[in-house]
């Protein structure tokens, strides 16, 4: 039974006014501009773009400002906005091999063509708070040296020797979970789309669980690269393919042991992660989860681990779906609760009566 409940309008308006005032904080402190967030909170902006599934740094920065730094709330704003946009089409698949890499490392080969390029990384910092940042000052200028050109793929070295499963190109149009509801079992293309927009924390936890033994993956990071790739789109009126923009991506390829089967000789297998923005934690986690979910096609054992269960992974990776269902329980459930209250009272009353008899 539903009972129409009205009221609270004034309270809601006042709550939103207070939210706006609180968002601004102490007015004696200069207000943050969207451009400042875009430039100086770039990794938060990247996360909001990746999980909001819409690459637009200004919009992501605006969403972060509006959400007072609550990134899941900001992602929610971006997801809502993207539903208002007409879809013009799809890009050509981006060529991450031609990426203008600012970072490129391999944990499998020390000396590799193109070298180990650290880029602007937190690795090897001491994780000591830098109080100099609390004071205003000039940022140091990054040194320059002989430029990094296009770097070859690490998995390409293994592929040439047939030591890793091939990944042959094809141009079948992929399924799109923003157009058709996610249907299980999902093929790898759909899984990768779901993981690419999935919650970083959830994927991190799942990937970590697989490393600790809940579903074995034994990965090596064959290669991790970050940089800009061109986005090419075919202009339908002209039939021309134009590189209309560039986006920063993080790509991780893991190399995993595979002992072979009756039909296949032993070779390495692949896990793949590709994330918008600079987010190597998520790209590595994604590639571990991708690999773990491939157990069936590789004829591996189902150990019953959460990371191997695609329903568990795919149905819970989306933080907007998750937060929507989780947080709805704080909204009025007066009538539901009333019926449970009556039930509990009735049960207690009948129990008390039986005890008395």
């Amino acid at each position: 039974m539903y009972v129409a409940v009205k009221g609270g309008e004034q309270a809601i308006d006042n709550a939103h006014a207070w939210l706006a005032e609180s968002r601004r904080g102490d007015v004696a402190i200069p207000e943050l501009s969207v451009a400042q967030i875009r430039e100086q909170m770039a990794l938060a902006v990247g996360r909001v773009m990746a999980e909001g599934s819409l690459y637009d740094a200004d919009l992501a920065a605006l969403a972060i400002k509006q959400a007072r730094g609550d990134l899941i709330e900001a992602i929610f704003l971006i997801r809502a906005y993207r539903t208002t946009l007409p879809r013009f089409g799809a890009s050509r698949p981006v060529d991450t091999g031609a990426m203008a890499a600012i970072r490129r490392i391999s944990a499998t080969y020390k000396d590799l063509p193109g070298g180990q390029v650290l880029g602007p990384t937190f690795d090897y910092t001491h994780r000591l708070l830098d109080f100099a940042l609390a004071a205003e000052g000039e940022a140091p200028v990054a040194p320059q040296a002989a430029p990094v050109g296009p770097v070859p793929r690490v998995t390409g070295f293994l592929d040439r020797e047939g030591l890793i499963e091939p990944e042959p190109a094809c141009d079948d149009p992929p399924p799109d979970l923003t157009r058709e509801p996610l249907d299980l079992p999902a093929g790898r293309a759909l899984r990768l789309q779901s993981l690419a927009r999935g919650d970083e924390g959830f994927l991190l936890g799942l990937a970590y669980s697989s490393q600790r033994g809940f579903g074995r993956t034994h990965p090596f990071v064959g290669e991790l690269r970050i940089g800009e790739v061109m986005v090419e789109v075919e202009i339908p009126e002209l039939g021309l393919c134009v590189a209309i923009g560039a986006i920063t991506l993080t790509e991780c390829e893991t190399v995993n042991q595979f002992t072979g089967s009756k039909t296949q000789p032993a070779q390495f297998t692949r896990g793949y992660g590709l994330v918008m923005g600079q987010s190597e934690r998520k790209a590595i986690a994604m590639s571990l989860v991708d690999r773990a979910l491939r157990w069936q096609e590789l004829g591996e054992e189902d150990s019953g681990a959460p990371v191997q269960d695609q329903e568990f992974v795919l149905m819970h990776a989306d933080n907007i779906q998750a937060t929507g269902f989780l947080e709805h329980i704080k909204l009025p459930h007066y009538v539901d609760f009333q019926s449970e209250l009556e039930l509990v009272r009735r049960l207690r009353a009948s129990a008390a009566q039986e005890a008395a008899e």
Partner: protein
Amino acid sequence: MPATPHTRAEAMGLLARARPERLAELAPDLPGHAMLRAPETGAVMVQGRQGGTGAPFNLGEMTVTRCAVRLDCGAIGHAWVQGRDKGHARRAAVLDALLQTDRAAELAATILAPLAADETARHASQAARAGATRVEFFTMVRGEDE
């Protein structure tokens, strides 16, 4: 149409990837034109490939603004640009149309060449910063091979 150093697709790419302020600085005045399609913002689904080289999958969308114009002389121009800047899309479409006229060589020199130089410089500066973080390994001789 006179030859220019860039194909139409390359020119459209340079116009699209230019910073909007830079394009406005290089081409402040636009000739008279009619809108065939007023600037409209939407999304393009960006695809990746499984394992970097395999079958495509949908990575996520990006914002794109498109526009089509006809100049008074009849030339038609199209633009698709990343982002939501309608002025950028309109300017890029008008310039695409102008590049189909006898002003192509002049515009290639005054607009496309500086844009290409900007892009090359930006890429070179990033690549040089990356180059400075390339690890040079020093291998110690430990004597086990004796």
